[in-house]
């Protein structure tokens, strides 16, 4: 049997976005199976000669979510009778779901980061997902949202992380790396500058905490300083200019990031996530993480006291995404509880141990991939 062509559509695997990393890892692991011939049509980045897969890249300025390049790409890849697997929000893929007379199978790995009115996805997302031959969610919560939307059972598999890169590092060296004091209280926040990532709550929380911990330092890791949020304006308005350790994503290797996580006493993630790499990475490095009590990311938080409940919800975006609204004071209370009673590093690492690719690939993903060929 010749290998089955499998083309991923997502962020480019050479990008350091969460989606890019998931795509890179899944594509490379699948390429290790002789049953598949793997390619990737990715948005952004340049491609990389170090990856064992065929790569097609469209610029980030492309507003068609790869639609414009798809046909030409598929012809070149020779994948008309194979599988096309998307790793994107369904709202970007309506065009793909509506392609007619296709011979390839549609597989989708859907990062559901919110529900919507009547606890379902919006109509266009639902219509998109329905057209797939196989649907897969990141989390049990995401699978339930999709199930309620399309009216049939949906499986879920979490994505993994590279445990060689993300692991607890020596705290002393890590603090030297981040340029913070050994006795400082260090709180970290790694989020892109997007609307659904509530940098406002993060800064408000840290500002309040600083009243209790004068030697507090705030590690901010972000992709751009000014977009939906102005990070400099937040720092200035909350009076935190003198205590911020700023790093820019895209410029830091994973191993370096693991030192930054390891330097922290706590990280914050006031965001809605399909799953959320910063949650996994923080705990993999032995650092507790405070997360909103909403969405699939909740499933990997080991203690209920590390979850902050929303005060209310609002609808957001043209896709009617239900977003939680947080009270910064609730984050302050929960953060103080963790800082006063820090967990053992082992509790954090144990919470994500099953997500190491070396464990997750053979137990879940490899089976799912091969089962798809059998069906």
């Amino acid at each position: 049997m010749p290998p089955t062509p499998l083309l991923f559509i997502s962020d480019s695997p050479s990008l350091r976005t969460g989606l890019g990393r998931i795509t890179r890892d899944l594509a490379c692991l699948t390429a290790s199976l002789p049953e598949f011939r793997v390619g990737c049509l990715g948005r952004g980045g340049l491609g990389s000669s170090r990856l064992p897969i065929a790569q097609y890249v469209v610029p980030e300025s492309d507003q068609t979510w790869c639609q414009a390049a798809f046909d030409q790409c598929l012809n070149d890849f020779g994948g008309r009778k194979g599988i096309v697997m998307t790793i994107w929000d369904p709202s970007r893929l309506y065009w793909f779901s509506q392609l007619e007379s296709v011979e390839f199978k549609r597989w989708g790995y859907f990062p559901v980061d919110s529900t919507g009115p009547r606890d379902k996805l919006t109509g266009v997302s639902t219509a998109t997902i329905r057209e797939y031959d196989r649907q897969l969610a990141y989390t049990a919560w995401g699978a339930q949202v999709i199930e309620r939307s399309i009216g049939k059972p949906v499986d879920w598999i979490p994505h993994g992380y590279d445990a060689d890169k993300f692991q607890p590092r020596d705290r002393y060296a890590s603090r030297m790396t981040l340029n913070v004091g050994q006795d400082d209280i260090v709180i970290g926040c790694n989020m892109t500058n997007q609307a659904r990532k509530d940098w406002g709550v993060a800064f408000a929380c840290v500002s309040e905490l600083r009243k209790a911990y004068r030697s507090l330092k705030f590690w901010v890791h972000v992709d751009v300083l000014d977009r939906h949020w102005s990070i400099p304006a937040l720092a200035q308005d909350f009076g935190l200019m003198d205590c911020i350790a700023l790093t820019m994503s895209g410029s830091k290797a994973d191993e370096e990031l693991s030192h930054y996580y390891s330097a922290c006493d706590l990280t914050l993630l006031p965001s809605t996530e399909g799953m959320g790499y910063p949650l996994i990475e923080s705990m993999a490095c032995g650092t507790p993480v405070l997360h909103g009590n909403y969405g699939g990311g909740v499933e990997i938080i080991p203690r209920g006291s590390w979850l902050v409940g929303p005060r209310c919800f609002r609808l957001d975006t043209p896709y009617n995404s239900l977003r939680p609204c947080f009270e910064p004071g609730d984050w302050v209370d929960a953060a103080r509880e963790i800082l006063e009673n820090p967990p053992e590093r082992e509790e954090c690492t144990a919470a994500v141990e099953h997500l190491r690719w070396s464990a997750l690939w053979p137990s879940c993903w490899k089976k799912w991939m091969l089962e798809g060929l059998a069906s």
Partner: protein
Amino acid sequence: MNYEIVMVKCEGTGHIPGSHPADAWRIIDNQSNRFSPCEAYQRALNCRATKPQPDVQIYIHDDVTIHEKDWLENVLMLFRHMDATVVGFGGATSLGSPDLYKVPYRLENMARGGYVSNQTDWQVHGGREAGFRQVAVVDAFMMAVRTDFLRKIGGWPVQHLTHHCLDLWLCCEAARHDRKVFLVGCSVTHHGGGTSVKDIYRNAAWLQGGTRESDHQEPHRWLAQEYRDVLPLRVK
């Protein structure tokens, strides 16, 4: 088809009906609890000096009473005609939760599901099955296994297991090698509560360094780590 009944003799008072030739028995005397059950099974597998290798070895606890005279024929039939590799008197249609590897390891996620048998107290254990059916795992109180398969997989896992989970291990190996596991609903009583809850077990040399609790928990964790390519097991 040649067979051999392997019984590790402790303090059980079971009864196996039928007329079996002397060379069909392999009794391992373990009343002093010198060997772990796994070690005793391995000794039974290794004892080949005086007779040819049987096609099937039938490992039965010594506290099992079989109430059907034609039990042996029913067991061997599954090897002859159904391509069975493992046969038991009790079995479950699943081992392990579907989320076993999607969430942090928990012992309860390694539970069996859909256990059926024709044990005289079958209600205590699960459902009833008086015929035969394919299952994911059998229960250790009776395990019949093709001897060549047992040899192919390197014999009993004496380096990893002592008492618990030998049945689950055998069926994980069967799944890994794409072999079939069956139960036959034989009327049987597993008296249970024998050696494993007595002081002789707690003081056994092969358990030193462990406890009855750890001897239960650690094998499950080991299985979950070792057999992630086939677990969770499930048959329809």
